[in-house]
């Protein structure tokens, strides 16, 4: 019964969407704003990766909101799970084998380095703060799985998270005080396709990388710690 009702409901929604999709043909350019970004993006922001220039400059306010969402998730997860912190871990897990342990220890700095590369070069190549941050977090996941018993200090992630968020807001406020616009790209843009270019974009993206990395690592840490 439930299934039939659901299918009927979904059918109605599908019909409506198909009607409306008829006006949005696939593979045809329908942009107005996007074309402007492609044409002007490189001069106005100095970033070779247009997606980055949108994420960190044109629509940086969204990005600020987005890291806030992740921050809320990390804090909220901590709040929801916190009352169980009192239970100490009951049983010790069996230690990982030597091969696994050494392999994880060996891979960990490499993955960290890769993540850092991704978010430092966000304005030149595909990738950026989110992707790099996620990769950094997955390095920590590897450590949790491979080298049991190790964990990052909670205060450390907290401080990095807060500082990175503050850097973003302060950069925005500096733009407000220098040029009258919040998140204005007030630093010199430099020549495109060079590492030190694009003004505030690398700074903000590195801050995002740290923040996303530490928040996702904190989420994993919280869940793993609870699950012992």
């Amino acid at each position, binding site marked *: 019964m439930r299934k039939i009702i659901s299918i009927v409901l979904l059918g109605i929604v599908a019909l409506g969407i198909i009607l409306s999709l008829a006006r949005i043909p696939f593979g045809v350019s329908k942009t*107005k704003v996007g074309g402007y970004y492609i044409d002007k993006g490189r001069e106005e922001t100095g970033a070779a990766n247009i997606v980055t220039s949108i994420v960190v*400059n044109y629509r940086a306010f969204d990005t600020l909101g987005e890291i806030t969402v992740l921050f*809320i998730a990390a804090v909220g997860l901590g709040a929801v799970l916190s009352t169980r912190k009192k239970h100490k871990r009951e049983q010790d897990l069996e230690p990982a084998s030597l091969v696994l342990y050494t392999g994880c220890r060996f891979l960990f700095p490499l993955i960290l380095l890769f993540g850092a590369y991704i978010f430092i070069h966000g304005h030149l190549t595909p990738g950026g703060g989110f992707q790099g941050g996620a990769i950094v977090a997955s390095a920590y996941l590897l450590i949790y799985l491979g080298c049991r018993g190790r964990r990052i200090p909670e205060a450390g992630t907290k401080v990095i998270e807060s500082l990175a968020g503050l850097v973003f807001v302060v950069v925005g406020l500096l733009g407000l005080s220098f040029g009258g616009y919040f998140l204005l790209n007030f630093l010199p843009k430099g020549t495109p396709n060079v590492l030190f270019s694009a003004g505030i974009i690398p700074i903000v993206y590195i801050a995002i990388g740290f923040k996303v990395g530490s928040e996702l690592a904190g989420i994993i840490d919280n869940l793993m710690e609870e699950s012992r």
Partner: protein
Amino acid sequence: MVSPVLLIAVPLGLAFALPLFGLVSKRIGKYIPVVAFAFNLIISLLLIPKVLDHSIVISIGGFSPPFCINLVAGPVGILFSALIALVGLLVSIYALDYIREGPKEKYHILYLLLLTGATGVVLTGDIFNLFVFFEILCISSYALVAYTGEKSGIESAVKYLIQGAIGSSFLLIGIGLLYGLFGTLNMADIAQNITTISPLSVFVPLVLIITGLGVEAAIFPLNAWLPDAHSSAPSSISAILSGIAIEVGLYAVVRVIFTIFGASNIFMFLAFLGVLTLLVGELCAFSQNNIKRMLAYSSIGQIGLILFALSIATSFGVTSGLFQLISHVLAKSLLFLAAGYMIYRTGSMDIPSFEGMGKRMPLTSLAFTVGAFSLVGLPPFMGFPSKFLIVQGALAKGSLFFTVLIGLVLFGTVIEGAYFFRVVQTMYFSAKGRSAFGGRGGKSNPGGNEASVVALIPVFILVALIVGIGVYPKFMTGILDSAASELLNRFEYIRSVLG
């Protein structure tokens, strides 16, 4: 320089910095929201005279709209942000004393971010940015509903989260369709081009977006989560969820319908939906025995009433709707705050356990009574002029449809009166059980059961506002009129953004 962007940036920065303050001293954390909202309130009040003159449009990043995200600080936006800051400030003062258990620092971070999200929703002029701030609002409320960690809290947070997440996905699909149709995300830019596309293909994104926002605004078929979530959250959070979150949801719905789509042909439907929501809410509230659930259902009813008043869509109607909205925000937060302490003292949410409250906690009971009477719409309080205006506005419309609906609205008000009087009667005039309950606390230690002073300050500021505006409603007329004209005059909005 006073810029509306500070209303969002400063609380956000303080929220990020709150864990750092926590490292210095454990006790600073709870004062941060107070500071942040005091700051916001001052900025909003400073901005009011400016925006009455003309809307302030702020572009983020120094590019011109529609190529960047812009904030529109019009009368509506600043009115809402002042309201959010005011209630936020009062509830955060209340919470200084009320929140004593659990991860307090996390509570204050989430609380701060919830209201920052709400401020962002009312100020932004970009539809995807609205989605992002909406998510900030929703996700922090999911976490705060579950804050107590009790069975009911977790369960209702799960319900809320699932329904909210489906709603957000619908909203995002709608935004995607709009982007496909218009190639832009700026609300003014979409509004300008909305007539170039056939109404049929615009209708689907409209429905999807309203469904998505309607989950948070608790419009009738989408409000299954509300009573559970509002009744099992801590009382200070219930006050915010009932007083701010659903109103902001409603604001978003109204902004989308009035400004972006200019969809004047669905107002009848919305008015009908509003009255339906009102009746469902009031009837369910009538049958409740749990005070917080009763207040939560009453919020549904009030949202229906506000939606009805707004969809009259004359300048009279919209003004009265906004007035009712403000009166509901103040009265409902007052009711939840007062009820919160009474529940704290009695340890029970059942209405019969409030017998003799008028003796044991005279001040809190008085405040509760003021809130209840204002919500019902009795004369010396703020609810009276607002309800009166709604009736007047609906009758001035002159159509049979609205006249019939206003009859139903009055019927809803009668029910509302019935259940609020029942509570007040239990508090003051119940003969039974007084000796059993009130005897000990009331006589041996007079006033010892009263809520703490820190909690009474915000409660009585709210009482003063409700009585003050009720006695002198002209005080609000200026800002309400220009807010109503901003909502109704979409061409003015488009012109002020795009130049």
